[in-house]
Structure formats: C-alpha cells, structure tokens
C-alpha cells in the first residue's frame, strides 16, 4: 500500500509538470499583453517593463526560469495586482470557491444517494421514473443554465433570493450562496443518483442479499448494512469527474453571482494576460484534481477489502 501510494505520488508530480509545460506555451499564444493602457506607453517603457518581468527573453528560457522558481515554491507576483504574490492571491480567493464547491458536493451527494436508493428500492414506481427523469435532465443541462434560470426567477422576478452572493461589505452570505450552490449541485445530484440507482438495483438482486434475507435479517439492516455500503463502492469512482465538473462549473457560476472566488479570479487573469496568475491557478487546479483522484483511489481500497489486499500483496 505504501509503495503504491509513493508510486502514485511520483506519477502525480510528472502529470503536474506536463500540465504546467503545456499551459505555459499555450498561454504565450494568448493575444494581447499583460500591460494595460499599452497604447499610452512609450516603446521604451514597454521594453523596460518586459525586462523587469523577464518577458524579453526567449520563451524557452522564460519557461526554465519559471519552472526553476516553481520548484522552490515561488509562483511569482501577479501583474494585475502589484506587489501581491500569486500564492497570496490564490489563498485569499480560495475560501469562497471552496465553500461553494464543498456545499454543492455535499448537497448533491446526499440528495443524489437518497434519490438513487429510493428509486432502486421502489423500482419501476413513480419515484423511480421521477428520479430517472431528474437525473437525465441534470446531467444534460449545464449548470450555468440552471444558475441563470434560478437567478432570473427566484431573484429577479420573485425576489426571494439576492442576485449577488455577497453583502455590502463584500462578505459571502448563506442565503446569497444558496442559489449558486443549488445550481452547481444539480450535476452532482444527477450523477450520483444515476449511479446509486444502478448499483443498488444490482446489489439488492445479488445472491448475498438473498442469503441475508434467508438469515432472517430485517429489511432495514439488509438495506443499510448489506446493501448501501456495497452499492456505494462504485459510486465513489464518479467523485473525480464530479469534482472536475464542479471546478469548471464554478468558473461561470462565480461570475453570474459575483462570488469573489478563484474561478472569477482565473477568468479575470486570462482577460488581462496575467501570466503568473494563470500559471499559478492552473497548477493549483490541476494539483487539486489529481489529488482528488488519488484520494478516491486510496479510499476505494479502504472501503473494498478485495482491493485493499490486492494492493498490499504487490
């Protein structure tokens, strides 16, 4: 297990290097320059600025200089906000994003799992058909469409929720986060519900459930002790793709609801060619994603004894 983990961590670092490299060169293809009001600057001033930020050197040289600094944990200084390190920028922006993402994941998995179980236990009833319809709609419609609809009807038209997630002091409010959380959680709910239903149906029809019934175990214990646990195992694998969806979804949703999060910041940094921030945020997002996938894989081993032992014997 330890060897396996170390191996996975090495792969993880390699993946990060590949992503950073690709992003670095692609980013250089972005049109525009990092300096605002470029028209008003003299060529000398621009040259001076380029020199300060090492932008006059060949791209490959810039790349190695950057990667060298990153290896030491230095992600540079933002072009947009002078004197603010990228690390600082990300850490102040991560809070609202993390809160939104976590809320959406928690809400989505709880509703999704419940819906999936209910649909499976009441197979071919109206609960089942209803849950299936919700799941199909939730997976196929992008979260920003929900966000727009929710905002239009609940905030603008009926004024039940605020349009913007923050209050006058620029602080996030619980009620303000409600709609973005719901919009973002729809995909999670649908995906979990769909998987949970399929897995639960299969588990409840399996031989060991029949044997558990033959032992005289109560329905409650059969569902909770024998059924749900086994049905949950494969569902864990979809947490990875869901996390991706949450992160990309939140880029747009943060914009719609004016949430001062990392996604909002990321979009801004692309508009303004803020190279260090683009790089820093990309590496951070990738790191987060790869870690989630690794954790999911390790978790899988903890929950499923068959995999635990297989890993241990290697």
């Amino acid at each position, binding site marked *: 297990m330890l060897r396996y983990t170390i191996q996975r961590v090495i792969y993880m670092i390699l993946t990060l290097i590949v992503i950073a490299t690709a992003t670095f060169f692609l980013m250089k293809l972005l049109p525009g320059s990092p300096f605002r009001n470029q028209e008003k600057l003299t060529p000398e001033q621009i040259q001076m600025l380029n020199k300060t930020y090492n932008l006059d050197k060949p791209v490959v040289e810039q790349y190695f200089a950057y990667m060298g600094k990153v290896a030491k944990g230095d992600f540079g200084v933002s072009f947009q906000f002078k004197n603010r390190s990228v690390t600082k920028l990300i850490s102040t922006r991560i809070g609202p994003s993390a809160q939104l993402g976590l809320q959406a994941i928690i809400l989505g998995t709880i509703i999704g799992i419940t819906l999936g179980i209910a649909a499976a236990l009441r197979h071919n009833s109206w609960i089942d058909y209803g849950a299936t319809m919700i799941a199909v709609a939730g997976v196929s419609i992008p979260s920003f469409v929900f966000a727009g609809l929710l905002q239009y009807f609940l905030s603008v038209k009926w004024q039940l929720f605020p349009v913007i997630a923050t209050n006058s002091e620029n602080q996030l409010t619980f009620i303000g986060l409600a709609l973005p959380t719901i919009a973002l959680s729809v995909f999670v709910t649908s995906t979990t519900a769909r998987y949970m239903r399929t897995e639960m149906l299969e588990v409840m029809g399996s031989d060991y459930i*029949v044997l558990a019934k033959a032992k005289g175990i109560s*329905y409650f214990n059969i569902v909770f002790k024998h059924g749900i646990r086994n049905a949950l195992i494969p569902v864990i694998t979809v947490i990875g793709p869901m996390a991706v969806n949450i992160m990309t979804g939140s880029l747009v949703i943060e914009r719609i609801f004016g949430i001062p999060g990392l996604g909002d910041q990321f979009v801004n940094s692309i508009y303004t060619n803020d190279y260090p921030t683009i790089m820093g945020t990309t590496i951070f997002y990738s790191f987060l994603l790869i870690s989630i996938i690794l954790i999911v894989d390790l978790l899988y081993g903890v929950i499923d004894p068959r995999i635990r032992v297989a890993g241990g014997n290697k």
Partner: protein
Amino acid sequence: MDKLLEVKDLHVSFKTYGGEVKAVRGVNFNLYKGETLAIVGESGSGKSVTVKAIMRLIPNPPGKIVNGEILFDGKDLSKISELEMQHVRGKDISMIFQDPMTSLNPTIKVGKQIMEGLIKHQKLSKKDAYERALELMRLVGIAQPEVRLQQYPHQFSGGMRQRVVVAIALACNPKILIADEPTTALDVTIQAQILEMMKDLQDKIDTSIIFITHDLGVVANVADRVAVMYGGQIVEIGTVDEIFYDPRHPYTWGLLASMPSLDTDEQTELIAIPGTPPDLIHPPKGCPFAARNQFALAIDYEEEPPFFQISETHFAKTWMLHPDAPKIEAPESVKARVRVMPGNFEKPIQVEGL
C-alpha cells in the same frame, strides 16, 4: 414419524410480459422430523421456486404465492406477516444456495456474517455470538477459526465458502435445512466432503433436510425419500429404494435411464429424454409429460392424471397405474434394476392428492 412441514396445493406464479408463468402448480408434500427429502427434476421444473416459496423468498413482483398452504409449527407460512416470517427464517428454517462464490457479502468479515443471525435470533451478546461462531467454524471443519473469522470471503476458496454458508445456516440449530443444489458449483472431492459433513451435522443436531439436486448419485447417498418434479408438479414421490428400484412414472424412468450410476456398466446406454419441458404460461391440458412420453395413453392428452398409491410411502401421478390401462413395460435399462418392494399394495389405489 412427526410431521414437521406440510405443503398443501401450493401454486406459485410469475407475472411476465409474455403472460403468467405458472411455475409451481399444485405441489403437495410432507417433511418428517430428521429425514432428508431429495427433490429431483430437470431444469425449470419448479424445484427452487417451491423451496423459495417455503422461505417466502419469491421476489414479489413478479412472483406470488397464488394458492396453497405451508403449515409449519401451527402457522401457515404463506399467510403470516413479513415480520413474523423474519423470525422463522434463519432460526427454524434456513437455506443453503447453489453458488458459494456469490452467497457471501464481499465487504463484511466472515465472522460478522455468521454472528449476525445469532445476535438476532438467539439474542446472544457479541462475545457469546463470537464464541458460538468459533464453535460453528470448527464444526464445519475450518482450521484456525480465530484467524478465519477476521477474514473476508475472497480470502476463502469455494469449498471453504460453502462451509461458511453451511455454518451460517446451522447457526441457530434450525429444524429444517433447505439445500438448493449446494454442491453443484463445487468439484467432486469437495462435493463429497460437504455432503459427508452435512450428514454428520444432521445426526448431531437432528434437523430435517430438503435437498435439491440433479445428481441421482448424490440422492442415493443422502436421501431418505425422493420427490420427482416435472412441469411445476410432483409426479412421483417415495422412499429412495422405491424411486430407484421400483419407479412407476414414465418421467422417472426417463430420468433414471438418462443418468449414469455406479451400477451402470459400460454396455448400458444412457438415453436422454427427448423433447422440451412444457410451456408454463399455457400448461397442456392433460398430463404435462404426455408430449414427451413414448408410452402416452389417449387420456393423457385429455385429463390430468390423479395420484395412485403404490405403497404406504410411494405415490405416482400417472394414468398408467389405472386398472383399465394397458400393461406397459419399463425400458430395458430401468427394468434391469427393478426389485420387488415388500411394502407394495396388491394393486395401486387411486387417491385424492397426497
């Protein structure tokens, strides 16, 4: 002998898109204390459905006990509530299934799976249940039970898993043990070991066994009585000797002729029964076996045969035993084994049901 279980006119159906599959159509039998009753019959004849109905494990929907009584311990198991039934399952009646590879929950430790029933039915504490689980593991011949109880099913071989399943079934000293092809999925040596073990345990705890199998060799080995099922009905029932050495139903003849046994010599040809099982959605009017029966009489296509009683214990559902029926000889391979049964009546007597 004490009657432990009485199945009366049991009908079980499944609602499917094609129509109502009448899987069990009027099954009657008794189970006596301490005996082993084998149920044989080809695939689809309703053996599993019959015993699952006794355990009330028929998936509903699509399945349903349409009619009949299952009398046990003063109760009709086909009528009592699900909650009452939970106290019968695993405690008074328990079951072993065909495939040990899939019968155990892969994510729960074997020990816990054995203890579960003990805690529920015998209200044992965790510690006492653990002690009893150790004892059961030794009883079914698993070495190092302390270690084994902490392991998961995938750490056990198929034969070992079936021993665990037997241990689970025997945990609460059930009055009836139902084994639905418990050795079919195992190789021959393991099969023999498991059968030997079951016989031993039966002597120890004096339980009655209903044993479903395709293997007539196994039947000869373990059973006291045999019920032959065809098309959702019992067509012949009697003691092992009566079924093996004095079979009366043409389907039983076919079964015996189609299966090798220790005393078949090289020359004896094994003959498969021609044709296919009856359509259970639209069962034939007369005898369900008529279409495949080379000896079928005209009445077999018209009217369902009644039971005829050949001895105190031997019954067969065929018109061939009617006094007016022409005398028909069993096929050579069967005739060769026929012996005179001392308990036979002078003539078969027509009876109502069993």
